[in-house]
């Protein structure tokens, strides 16, 4: 066995090992990607839920109710409004 064969053999071994390592790396990255995507979906859902809650809390029915009953507010009318126009 001459020297060049030995060197090539070592290189081959290293390549094979790096292939295994790369494969392992790919898989762990893919797992991380999956996890992030799941998280993304979860956060999207969370956002939808919050948007719904916000809407629920800000809907006219609720605002009117609170304004009238708790805060004793009255609807404005043109008689008590000063209109400002842009000229």
């Amino acid at each position: 066995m001459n020297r060049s064969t030995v060197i090539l053999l070592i290189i081959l071994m290293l390549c094979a090992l790096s292939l295994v390592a790369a494969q392992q790396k790919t898989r762990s990255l893919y797992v991380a990607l999956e996890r992030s995507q799941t998280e993304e979906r979860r956060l999207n859902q969370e956002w939808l839920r919050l948007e719904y809650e916000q809407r629920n809390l800000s809907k006219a029915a609720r605002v009117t109710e609170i304004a009238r009953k708790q805060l004793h507010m009255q609807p404005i009318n043109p008689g008590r409004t000063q209109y400002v126009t842009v000229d």
Partner: protein
Amino acid sequence: MPQISFSSTPNLVLRLPMWRSRLVLFLIFVGFIALTARAVWVQGFGNSFYEEKGNKATLRSIEMPASRGKILDRNGEVLATSLLAKAIIAFPDAVPEDLSKEKLTQLAHLLEMNEGELKKKLSSERTQVFLKRQVDLEVAKQIKDLGIPGIAQNNEYRRLYPEGEAMAHIVGFTNVEDKGQEGMELAREKDLAGQPGRRRVIQDRLGRYVEGLGVIHPPKDGADLQLSIDSKVQFLAFNEIKDAVEKHHAKAAGAVVLDAQTGEILALANWPTYNPNSRAHLSGEQLRNRVLTDTFEPGSTIKPFTISTALEKGLVQPNTSMPIGKSYVVGKKAITDTHPYGVLTVAEVIQKSSNIGTAKMAMQLQPQDMWEMFQAVGLGQAPNIGFPGAVAGRLRPYKNWVPMDQAIMSFGYGLSASLFQMARAYTIFARDGELVPATIYKSNAVPKGTRVLSAKTAIQMREMLETVTQAGGTATKAQTMGYRVGGKTGTAHKVEGKGYSGNKYRGFFVGMAPMSAPRIIVAVMVDEPSAGGHYGGEVAAPAFSNIVAGTLRSMNILPDSAVKQMVDKDLQVAPVGAAHKVSLSR
């Protein structure tokens, strides 16, 4: 005695026959051949079986979820949205028989069912039963934490409607499978529904997906849908008709608010209604979108169209006087008014809503002219707004009319229309003679209208409609503070069996505001009012007035009529800086 080493002891000298070693060698060789053959078989020809086994352990085809589109109002407020929920499934065989009483009680409590019912489900013969669907995530987590074997959960979506019953008839609802059943949810099912995708992955021993093998078909989320409805205006209209029903002990009511310029529907409210968030009451009468699906004889609200035709043909002018009298006989029928009038001008015929005056003008018209007018404003044709169940109403061809038909049709009997059709027809007065296509979707451009009347006639009619709400008119209660309004009342006897009911009415008001440049058309209908009057001017006009005031205010439209200031002008107003000091905490 000579020493003999152990290895050379003669006793051990044994000559084995040669064939034995050969045989062993051969057997080993055969063994190797068999192994090689097996390896070739396993890896080569017969490998599909093993490949399948391997794939079964690692390959997964998983669903990629897609969500149903949201429904939004014109300002982007959410009217319908889908949130993740869980379906709670039980595998009765896997649920232990000796499940503790305490856990069963807890589970029943979380599922909001009684224990007996739960036990019955858990002892079902089927392999799998739904215990409850569309369970909130929090509740689902609590159920999971109970750790009962044989109880599993599946992802699904739950449709939620923040506006609830105020918006129920427009948005509609979906069934438990997330398919549209009513309203826009049904009409636009195709666009709203998402299509879940599928992809292939490799799963490792820990259940993690370690490699993607590509997408079989990509998921498609449902498209969001933006309506022309303004949820503030809708809430306002809904409250007003609800109040009108309570105040007049009516059976039902409806209201439409149209943007007079763009034809967009700003509100479409119905009473009775239902809560689309609760699955318990999703059937029966309250589901009916009366504004679009119920037709009725429009009564006096049709008069402006008859009279416009007469004006357009040059038969009369707004100030043309005509004798009215106590009754007017056409064919076999005597037409009367609620109050007898002597002489009225054409404008006063509208203002006082005289049947006789209208019929007299109608009898000067050709039946075809009247029919063409009604046809042109959309009567007798289903409005093309892409809404399920919108009806056409009835408008008989003019060839079959006898003179009496023509006379009674001139004031709104013998033909039928929905409240929505009436509201849309009034756009010809608001838009100087043009009819615009109505739409329930938000549009940013002002659509091109179809000319039905000359601008001159439309403006004349607007002036007459305004007098209806002024002193001496039939709808002084339609007056709105700060805005000039105009419109027409209508009161029709309800059809019962073969004739008209003597004491069952429908009161309407269809009008527009502000009269200086109409921006909105509002139509209100109150069905079978039984207290506090039954005339359109009494039951529907006040609701009209409140809806107009609220809508114009929310659209930031400047008042066009003089307003008596209720606030002293010399009142000291705090400087702007001071306002910042007001604490907002409660």
